[in-house]
């Protein structure tokens, strides 16, 4: 309840920058990048301050325009969103730095627009993570989605508009379901503030309207996060988007939706309602199991790093949903930890893919021969990201999997445990297949094209390598300090 302004700055920073950017795009295009950087730096700094403050003195409630809840809109930041906000702000910032070269080369004519929409996307996603109001969440979610439709459509001119349009259809359905759910909650409680709703709900747990509300909300969120079998929109949308876009949308969008799901489960409906009144947890864990396996199998069929990575995301969504629905603290811990870890490792993977694409123009497997000699540093980052997704210690992916598996064992959900293990194996196959192609250069193939006269160093520019390096270090750092994160942030949050 401190008078801190950082929660507001967190959102207003990028928002103002977005408006400035769209203004500058008419006047002075070169100013856009610094403005965007300043906005995101402010956001990252605010996120850091917010995290520190939440760690020091507990949940922050920031009243927009001073109206008290439940009437006013409230930003409510506890340990979990503080963590998510930190991740989102940092990834958005790092990606901005990594993307500058790319944007000024491939999107030169739309530079200003790109930065403006990018900042809107970040604003929305930060807002979704910070808000404590159900309807506000919907609006911010739509802001995020609208920005991401536009961003995706900036990609491959052949395919991206159509992919984006399909994403619009699905996105609208998802958001509308969520909105419907909120409507039922409002009918029953007369409130939209999450905490307020949570305090009113226990009295009417048996109402079928609440059940409907819950189901609509969940379906909406699942569509938006691409939980199998509602995932069909995701691979195309993320694949045909320009790389600077897909590497920020891919780690953040789905992860923030998982956050929303957990927020709804924990803060709004409450675990008692979900696990004691309703009898669907088992079914959802089975669904998650199917998602993990299906995502992995579909990833196996891909011949392109980006497309493969999108199916890995589908699989990882299964991890998080399953963990959250196991119904025990360990599983929930694993799920929340995996939001963080998966965001970072997907980001690292896409950063590496971006560096490759910057040089090779595509990331199809067939063009990766001898890539280890050509781009050793990029590939180091790629290997680390791959190991993290496989779950090799000490990278962070191992440790969230650790909690998820133990949660699964505690809950007796052995199918989920088996799926996690099998998924690790599938990911190992996925990545070592790429490593193999990159490690062994097949001469006969190279001569056919005539341009690959022996592998030479063709490393990505330093401005793209440094972000990758930092992210890769984080992969290990987060892994080693996952005990601290769990003990300081996640366990106090779960109580």
């Amino acid at each position, binding site marked *: 309840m401190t008078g801190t302004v950082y929660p507001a700055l967190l959102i207003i920073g990028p928002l103002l920058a977005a408006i400035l950017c769209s203004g500058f795009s008419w006047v002075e295009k070169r100013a856009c990048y610094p403005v965007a950087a300043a906005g995101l730096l402010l956001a990252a700094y605010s996120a850091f301050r917010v995290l520190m403050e939440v760690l020091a003195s507990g949940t922050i409630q920031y009243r927009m325009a001073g109206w008290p809840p439940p009437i006013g809109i409230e930003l409510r930041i506890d340990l979990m969103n503080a963590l998510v906000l930190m991740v989102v702000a940092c990834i958005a910032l790092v990606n901005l730095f990594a993307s500058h070269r790319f944007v000024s080369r491939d999107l030169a004519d739309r530079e200003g627009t790109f930065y403006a929409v990018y900042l809107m996307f970040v604003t929305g996603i930060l807002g979704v993570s910070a808000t404590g109001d159900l309807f506000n969440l919907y609006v911010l979610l739509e802001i995020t989605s609208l920005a991401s439709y536009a961003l995706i459509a900036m990609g491959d001119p052949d395919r991206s508009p159509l992919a984006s349009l399909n994403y619009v259809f699905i996105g609208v359905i998802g958001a509308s379901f969520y909105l419907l759910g909120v409507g039922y909650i409002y009918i029953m409680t007369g409130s939209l503030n999450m905490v307020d709703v949570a305090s009113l709900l226990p009295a009417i747990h048996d109402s079928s309207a609440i059940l409907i509300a819950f189901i609509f909300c969940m379906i909406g969120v699942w569509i938006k996060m691409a939980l199998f079998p509602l995932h069909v929109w995701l691979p195309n949308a993320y694949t045909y988007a320009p790389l600077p876009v897909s590497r920020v949308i891919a780690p953040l969008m789905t992860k923030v939706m998982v956050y929303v799901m957990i927020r709804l489960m924990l803060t709004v409906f409450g675990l008692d309602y979900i696990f004691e009144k309703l009898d669907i947890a088992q079914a959802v864990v089975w669904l998650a199991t199917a998602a993990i396996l299906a995502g992995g199998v579909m990833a196996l069929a891909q011949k392109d790093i980006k497309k493969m990575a999108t199916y890995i995301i589908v699989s990882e969504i299964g991890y998080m949903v399953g963990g959250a629905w196991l119904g025990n603290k360990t599983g929930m811990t694993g799920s929340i930890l995996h939001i963080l870890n998966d965001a970072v490792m997907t980001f690292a993977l896409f950063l590496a893919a971006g560096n490759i694409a910057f040089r090779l123009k595509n990331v199809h497997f067939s063009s990766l021969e001898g890539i280890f000699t050509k781009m050793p540093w990029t590939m180091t980052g790629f290997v680390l990201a791959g190991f993290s997704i496989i779950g090799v210690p000490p990278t962070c992916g191992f440790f969230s999997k*650790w909690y998820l598996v133990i949660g699964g064992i505690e809950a007796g959900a052995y199918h989920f445990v088996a799926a996690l*293990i099998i998924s690790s194996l599938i990911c*190992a196959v996925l990545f070592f297949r790429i490593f*193999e192609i990159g490690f*062994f250069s097949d001469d006969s193939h190279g001569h056919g094209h005539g341009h690959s006269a022996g592998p030479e160093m063709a490393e990505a520019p330093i401005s793209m390598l440094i972000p990758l390096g930092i992210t890769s270090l984080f992969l290990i750092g987060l892994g080693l300090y996952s005990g601290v994160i769990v003990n300081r942030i996640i366990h106090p949050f779960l109580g």
Partner: protein
Amino acid sequence: MDQIVSIKPLLAVLVSMFVIPVLVSSSRKPNVREAWTFAAGAVKFFLVVSMLPAVLNGKEIVLEMFEIAPGASIAFKVDGLGMLFALVASFLWMITTMYSIGYMRGLDEHGQTRFYSFFALAVSATVGAAFSANLLTLYLFYEILSLATYPLVAHHQDQKSKISGRRYLIFILGTSIGLVLPAMLYCYSVTGTLEFTNQGIFQAGQVSKPAMTVLLLMFVLGFAKAGIMPFHSWLPAAMVAPTPVSALLHAVAVVKVGVFSIVRVMTGIFGIDLLSSMNLGTIVAALASVTIIVGSCIALSQDELKRRLAFSTISQLSYIVLGVALLSPNGILGGVIHIVMHAFGKITLFFCAGAIMVATGKKYISQMEGLGKKMPLTFAAFFVGSLGVIGLPPSGGFYSKWFIILGTLESGQMIFMVVLLLSSFLNAFYFLPIVFKGFFPKNTESGSTAPSFVKIEEAPLCCVVPLTITALISIILFFTPDLFIDLIKTALGI
């Protein structure tokens, strides 16, 4: 037991990891690069030795780094068992470095910087595994080792090494993720800890016997680096690697990490008492026995020298497992000491195989008749090495077999003694003829070797010196095995 907190174990692990950037940056100056590798090896060995007195005094050196979850942390603990393994690994790294200089330059291999870098990483992981205080840390280093070895196995970057590398990964990574990881997590969720202690982590009655059996088998088979059948076939495949890799990694470091992990799990996670009260040793011993006999038989039929050595390694590794699975003090002693004895014996043999390759380019045993006269020193060392592996005096290998046989007597499982003796005969059958034919060729008409006076054409000095040293040590160990026996006794409290 007294515990000393010290950063030394961490340094010992990291020193060879930190040298990698230096190696990469000096990739254009081979001499500087190799000097650095050597220096790192010396520092590492020195660090390990500096911890030796404390360990011999019955103390443990511990260092806790990161706590991941209650009871599961990344932590180091140096006890007798780990010390023994680390001593061997770090010492042999130095020797192997010297040997690889001779070998790699002799054959003018490509990608030498990559080779040395991943070699250093692999050794780091090996020592890390030796100093692990709990199963999580052990698993961590086990995986790092698996992955660091892949570029070494696939070093030649041709079709054959691609297939071998693939097989290597499928077996090693598949088993560790598919079997060890779930078993480990299950143990953790039942007991809440993964710490190695001599009495084991399970309370009586916590896990039923069938579940326990499954767990044990998951561990024993899951640590596929130990080459227990049916997960052994990666090892012969991995022989496509350059010989120094086969020598250090596939006779000492990698395979011994597998065995070491099994030993650690059986003594530290399950505990000898629990295993013997549930009578679970026999099933492991039976698995090991099958591997011993079948491995030896396959070795007999191999003509490529390195493949024969590989199958011999598979069967010898199971000696160690068998010794421990007997669950009697002498059996464990014999098993663990075989880690040392076999290391020196087998590395000598591999060094010899490599030296023959460098000097003459010959890989197949049938081509080696009469070579002994050209390369007397190499073949003499080969003889000593095979004595060590067969277990005959005057070589250290004698002790391991001696203690294991004592162990079978102690535990009253005579059948395993028969296995041991039978396998010794087989060992003799597949090693001694090589030496014999090397010195006394049946038909001396083969071209230039016909004259009675043969010019000595040994491999480069860098190749010959290491194999002489290891052969000598193998003999010295026959006379002074006390250091290692003491280490094991302090570790296991026997």
